[in-house]
């Protein structure tokens, strides 16, 4: 990021080009401060308005701005002359105003967006007037990396700010708000997925390191599209953080996030979805209170190192590379909600003793044998099951066949987000009766069946009898 006060001698303004959009001509002002530059497009009318204020309030000489003109204003020659004139004007104004740097001039050149000091100044003003709303917002406060980097730099480097009423930047306000914030979202929004430069500048968002220690009472931190190397002082949040989300940050191991040795005392939810994690490693033990672990969209192949997580109740590992599950109940304990959709699972045998499960999502796997479902039939606490997107979900009477394995429990089982309908349950009962008949026993006539079902059953029994005759 730029810092004007440290680079006053290395600051330059140029107008290198212009763009024509319909009626208007935009002059691309390139501001260079030290090693950083950015481009900001301005129209002549904006120059004119700026000039009026500067003349009135800051004593800039009146006649240095190129004149207004009415004719031939779109001819290239005229625009070129005006470009040169405006560039000369800006340089003059910058030299004249470089000690005072009036707000209107700062904003015109975009310093408030790319310069450490001027950005913080704006932020302080905003936080002073909106502190209550910021702190009461349920969704927390959104920071861009630039803001946090500016804060970190400002606190670490002595920036020589001239004493002038216009240059008061009350950093205390910012720190005060930060120390009270409970939910913070930090997102790096580069120009595209591969280009990490910030808007129209040469600031590389990936290289900005920032310190999280100003957040003293943070409960929830959401990080997106950052790299872990950018974060300093994440460890300072260990005592307060309850929820930590690190998404799309190319994290390659859980250890990169939880670091080592010291416990995360309050952490209950850890969401590391959309990263490059290949393994569930033992650093999770540093978060003994962890209840919810979300590792969707990674590259995990086995479930391991979770046996000691005695508070874990939700585990979500959707869209990973898990192909086989063996005796899952010896690897994870008392979990209620398990999402393993979009993996390559073929067999349900490994789930057969996960008695604690209330909800199991196995959608979009490779289960094709209906017999696999019998392993789930004994999960007496299960009330929500998703199997859609598996090869077996395309079978005729798929729902009824699945529900049949659940016996008495079937009527309370939400399968693929739908409760069983009465006709489905009737069919399940019919299949059950048929099975009993086939096994040579007398069907239990105490089962409550509606009249229509009895007729249906009769027909089916007749049909099977006929089958047996031929």
């Amino acid at each position, binding site marked *: 990021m730029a810092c004007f006060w440290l680079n006053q001698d290395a600051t330059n303004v140029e107008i290198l080009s212009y763009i024509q959009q319909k009626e208007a001509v935009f002059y691309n002002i390139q501001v260079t401060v030290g090693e950083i530059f950015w481009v900001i497009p301005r129209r002549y009318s904006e120059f004119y308005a700026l000039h009026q204020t500067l003349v009135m309030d800051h004593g800039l000489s009146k006649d240095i701005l190129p004149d207004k003109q009415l004719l031939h204003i779109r001819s290239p020659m005229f625009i070129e002359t005006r470009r040169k004139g405006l560039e000369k004007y800006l340089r003059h104004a910058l030299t004249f105003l470089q000690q005072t740097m009036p707000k209107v001039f700062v904003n015109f050149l975009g310093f408030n967006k790319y310069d450490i000091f001027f950005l913080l100044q704006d932020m302080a003003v905003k936080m002073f007037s909106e502190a209550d709303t910021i702190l009461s917002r349920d969704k927390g406060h959104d920071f861009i990396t630039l803001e946090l980097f500016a804060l970190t730099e400002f606190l670490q480097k002595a920036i020589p700010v001239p004493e002038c009423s216009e240059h008061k930047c009350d950093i205390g306000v910012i720190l005060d708000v930060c120390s009270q914030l409970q939910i913070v979202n930090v997102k790096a929004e580069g120009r595209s997925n591969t280009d990490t430069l910030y808007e129209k500048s040469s600031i590389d968002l990936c290289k900005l390191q920032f310190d999280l220690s100003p957040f003293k009472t943070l409960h929830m931190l959401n990080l997106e599209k950052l790299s872990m190397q950018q974060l300093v002082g994440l460890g300072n949040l260990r005592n307060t953080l309850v929820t930590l989300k690190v998404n799309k940050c190319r994290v390659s191991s859980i250890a990169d996030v939880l670091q080592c040795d010291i416990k995360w005392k309050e952490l209950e939810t850890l969401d590391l979805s959309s990263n490059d994690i290949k393994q569930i490693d033992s650093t999770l033990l540093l978060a003994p209170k962890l209840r919810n672990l979300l590792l969707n969209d990674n590259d995990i192949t086995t479930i391991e190192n979770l046996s000691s997580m*005695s508070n874990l109740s939700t585990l979500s590992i959707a869209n990973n590379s898990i192909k086989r599950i063996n005796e899952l109940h010896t690897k994870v*304990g008392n979990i209620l909600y398990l999402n393993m959709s979009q993996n390559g699972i073929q067999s349900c045998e490994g789930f057969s003793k996960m008695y*604690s499960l209330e909800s199991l999502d196995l959608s979009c796997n490779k289960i094709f044998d209906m017999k696999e479902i019998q392993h789930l039939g004994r999960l007496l606490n299960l*009330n929500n099951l998703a199997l859609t997107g598996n090869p077996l979900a395309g079978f005729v009477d798929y729902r009824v066949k699945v529900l049949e394995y659940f016996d008495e429990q079937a009527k309370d089982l939400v399968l693929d987000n739908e409760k069983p309908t009465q006709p489905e349950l009737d069919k399940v009962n019919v299949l059950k009766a048929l099975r009993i008949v086939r096994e040579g026993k007398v069907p239990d006539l105490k089962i*409550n069946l509606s*009249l229509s079902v009895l007729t249906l059953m009769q027909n089916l029994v007749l049909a099977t009898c006929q089958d047996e005759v031929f």
Partner: protein
Amino acid sequence: MSAGPYNYSYIFKYIIIGDMGVGKSCLLHQFTEKKFMADCPHTIGVEFGTRIIEVSGQKIKLQIWDTAGQERFRAVTRSYYRGAAGALMVYDITRRSTYNHLSSWLTDTRNLTNPSTVIFLIGNKCDLEGQRDVTYEEASKFAEENGLMFVEASAKTGDNVEEAFLETAKKIYQSIQDGRLDLNAAESGVQHKPSQPGGRPGTAAGGDQPGRDNCAC
């Protein structure tokens, strides 16, 4: 609907703990199936059983988690203490070492359950009087010192098995009546299911069941 298996008003969660081979799975089997299971295999991780009982006219469903006693499963079984309303701590009266380990089981239970969890000490295999290694008086004193309920039982003959499970339920029910146990707390190990006509009481919100009561018979 006839009195189906879902006609109950409370769920109590139990956990059975204790050293390997003291007869935890056999106690569960005796309680749920009323049979003795000879040659019971080692439990891998955890097993599960349910039975509906009646306490003071209330139907209560017991969800019982039978944990593996082997040390290698200790980590995984620890997670089942969470939300247990009752803990049955079992030792073998013919093996002193299983009795000596009780204090470590008790520490785990106290650390991992909530204060209102009822802990019941069971000295199993009391049919093997000839091989007795721990006296009734000694265990009884230990139970008293630690505020535990205590009984000697036999999963083989069925002696006192029902009593142990039922007494625990009575004590839990008493805690509810006294208001000592907060039903709304997630980890209380007790769920209240107010009876609804024609269906499992208190299923998930919005679970309307169209056509269920229009059954033609």
